[in-house]
């Protein structure tokens, strides 16, 4: 895989202005080999599950739903450098096809990487929901060692389909994670997503969502909880191509240590997309004098009868609030944790599935120590 690093996007590209992939170049990534893992690593969730270990479907640990199968389908063309790399090196991924009118409940899709020596993974998943179909997908990435996980997910929702997509990026401390998610959303369909970004030394989640039919709806929320020297980038492009669609985005960045959070969000409203309702908000909480946030909320609007707004706020915890909590007897670290938890709460709004919610709450809980110390 020697040519791997030759075509990495550079910072001269506007889309990569704030994220530098050159750290990848200090590793010689090899192709992964299958590995066995302890089933204790899997979260305790009562649902069908699809388990990938080092990019290979672990049939023993998986409980495949009827609609899922391993697949090495053609990659849809894209001009994104990392999606192209994924297409070139792609590994078989899961294909989930929910038929029309089926409520498929919840599925766990978990990707566990076990890297002795550095490995690179290029899974390509496809999730398609038929008309009026429904699915909750809990999408977890975790692992150990140094690896580069560069998954691409192609999501398509037919008319009136509903997908709740909860992502937990909890990769190993030394890992690189660069995920690209394409979502094509038809009329009256709804894509609800929340990404919790906890792990990796350098990560990026890049969404390209297209609202292609009237009345489509998208929620693209995220929370980044970073410490140490972590760098995490959340980039999204939401294209409103049809009228009467709504997009909502709340991204919260909590940055401790020397970490750096990046938010780049663009709402594009095409001429035809009259009556668009677009909202986008990035809020960052800087917990340390060495943390940095770079935020670029962007609007690109070609229709006149739309309601679009965006905002960004950056600040530290409010000393008045901390004092109020402490005056009621709550010790300072706990007071800070409460306020941080409250700060990200709004982003969690789309997570309505109980098990998913509990899982994410636990993961957030687990991140306090690195943030509040």
């Amino acid at each position, binding site marked *: 895989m020697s040519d791997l690093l030759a075509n990495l996007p550079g910072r001269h590209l506007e889309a990569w202005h704030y994220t530098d992939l050159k750290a990848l170049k200090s590793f010689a990534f090899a192709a992964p080999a299958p590995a066995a893992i302890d089933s204790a690593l899997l979260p305790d969730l009562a649902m069908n599950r699809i388990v990938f270990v080092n990019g290979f479907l672990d049939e023993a640990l998986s409980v495949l739903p009827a609609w899922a199968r391993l697949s090495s389908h053609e990659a849809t063309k894209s001009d994104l450098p990392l999606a192209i790399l994924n297409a070139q090196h792609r590994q078989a991924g899961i294909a989930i096809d929910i038929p029309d009118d089926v409520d498929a409940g919840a599925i766990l899709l978990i990707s566990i990487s076990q890297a002795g020596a550095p490995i690179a993974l290029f899974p390509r998943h496809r999730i398609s929901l038929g008309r009026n179909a429904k699915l909750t997908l809990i999408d977890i990435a975790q692992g150990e060692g140094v690896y580069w996980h560069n998954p691409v997910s192609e999501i398509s929702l037919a008319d009136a389909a509903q997908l709740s997509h909860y992502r937990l990026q909890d990769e190993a401390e030394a890992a690189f994670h660069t995920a690209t998610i394409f979502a094509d959303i038809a009329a009256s369909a709804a894509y609800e997503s929340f990404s919790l970004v906890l792990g990796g030394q350098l990560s990026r989640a890049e969404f390209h969502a297209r609202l292609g039919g009237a009345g489509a709806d998208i929620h693209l929320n995220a929370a980044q909880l970073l410490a140490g020297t972590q760098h995490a980038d959340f980039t999204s492009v939401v294209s409103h191509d049809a009228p009467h669609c709504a997009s909502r985005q709340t991204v919260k960045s909590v940055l401790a240590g020397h970490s750096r959070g990046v938010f780049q969000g663009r709402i594009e409203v095409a001429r035809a997309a009259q009556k668009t309702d677009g909202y986008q908000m990035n809020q960052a909480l800087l917990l340390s004098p060495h943390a940095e946030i770079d*935020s*670029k*909320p962007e*609007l690109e*609007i070609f229709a006149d009868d739309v309601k679009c707004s*965006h905002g960004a*706020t950056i600040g530290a915890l409010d000393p008045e609030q901390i004092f109020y909590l402490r005056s009621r007897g709550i010790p300072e670290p706990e007071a800070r944790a409460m306020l941080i938890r409250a700060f990200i709460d709004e982003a969690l709004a789309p997570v309505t599935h109980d098990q998913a919610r509990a899982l994410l709450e636990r993961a957030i809980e687990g991140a306090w120590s690195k943030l509040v110390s």
Partner: protein
Amino acid sequence: MPAIAETLDTVQQITGSTYKYGFETDIEMEFAPRGLNEAIVRLISEKKGEPEWLLAWRLKSFAAWQKMEEPNWARVKHPPIDYNDLYYYAAPKRPAPKSLADVDPDLLAMYEKLGIPLNERASLAGVAVDAVFDSVSVATTFRESLSKVGVIFCSISEAVREHPELVRKYLGSVVPAGDNYFTALNSAVFSDGSFVFIPRGVRCPMELSTYFRINARNTGQFERTLIIAEEGASVSYLEGCTAPMRDENQLHAAVVELVALDEAKIKYSTVQNWYPGDAQGRGGIYNFVTKRGACRGANSKISWTQVETGSAITWKYPSCILQGEGSVGEFYSVAVTNNHQQADTGTKMIHLGANTSSTIIAKGISAGQSNNTYRGLVRIMPNARNARNFTQCDSLLIGDRCGAHTVPYIECRNPTGKVEHEATTSKIADDQLFYCRSRGLSEEDSVGLIVNGFCKDVLKELPMEFAVEAQKLLAVSLEGSVG
């Protein structure tokens, strides 16, 4: 919607005649040969009788420019510019006037026609004017009364001759020659512009203003403005710009540098009304301008206010470098685009010092088939303790063939910093229009009223003498779209 469509039709009929500054003045001119090379740079310097150091600076800038490429990140499109097909120097043939009495009467008449009387008795009360015609300054009014309090207000060419130590100290100190493609070009071939120096403790007793006029065909205008406010000084400065209507595009690449020392205040207002091109998008000025102010001193303040209605393309980001502790940067902007105009404008607020604060209020109005982009950077550096920024960007779309874009870059590296950015996009609501019309206003007046209301936060920052003018300008600029 139907109401607007109707107005579109009615008003479409009066287009073409809307740019009232589009006349050409027949003045005998002297041109440098067409094209750009080292010899031209030397010639410009020689024409102006410049010292050796300035020529050397120009040549260095020219060498740098040759190695640079035109920036392409802005949301503007234009056919490639042939930099060798332009005149870089054009001046009225008459020898430079020694006083207002010597100014070519034809020129005086032209400025009268533009509403800028240069005759001191007839001029706007309390406003001193420097008039720049193509490549040279033709007149500066009220110099005497200003010099009594120690204020220097003259053309930059004259400042090079009369106050070389000041020019040498500050020229290029805020905007380095090699800052970008257009600053390098400007530094090589800049022709004229204004120079303002307000000494320590002096409040400039009147508004200063420069009036820029491009007249000659195929001529680029590359003016250079330098304003220095020493400790405790303050000044309010306004520039206005117009150009004749022509089918070809003309290039304007100016550089403005402001320096504010301790407790100094500079207010810089622009009413930019270069010829925007016709309804089909033919002609108009390419306005590629770099404006930057350095708040070097503690508690200094630089405030930019701009009303941008003209130019085929506007590429302009008046910025503040907030270095002095407690310094303040402000940017108030109205940008109107109509027909095929393209504007990519905004600001940069670079917070370096502690307790610095900045405010950005930007209003974009797009009509016709135009594109209007706000692009702004707010950067809080690690040493900028307790820095504050507030940004509000609002876009108004008139008609459904235009575009409105907002591209903020927000970078914060200090936890005590506080940054807030808000942006909205809307249209003139039918019920707002109806409400006004039901009170008896015509539709055009209603739109004018609503647009002015939308821009109020910015317009109120303009010096009073110009606020009314600016309001009228807004209405005129939107003619042919709705009102």
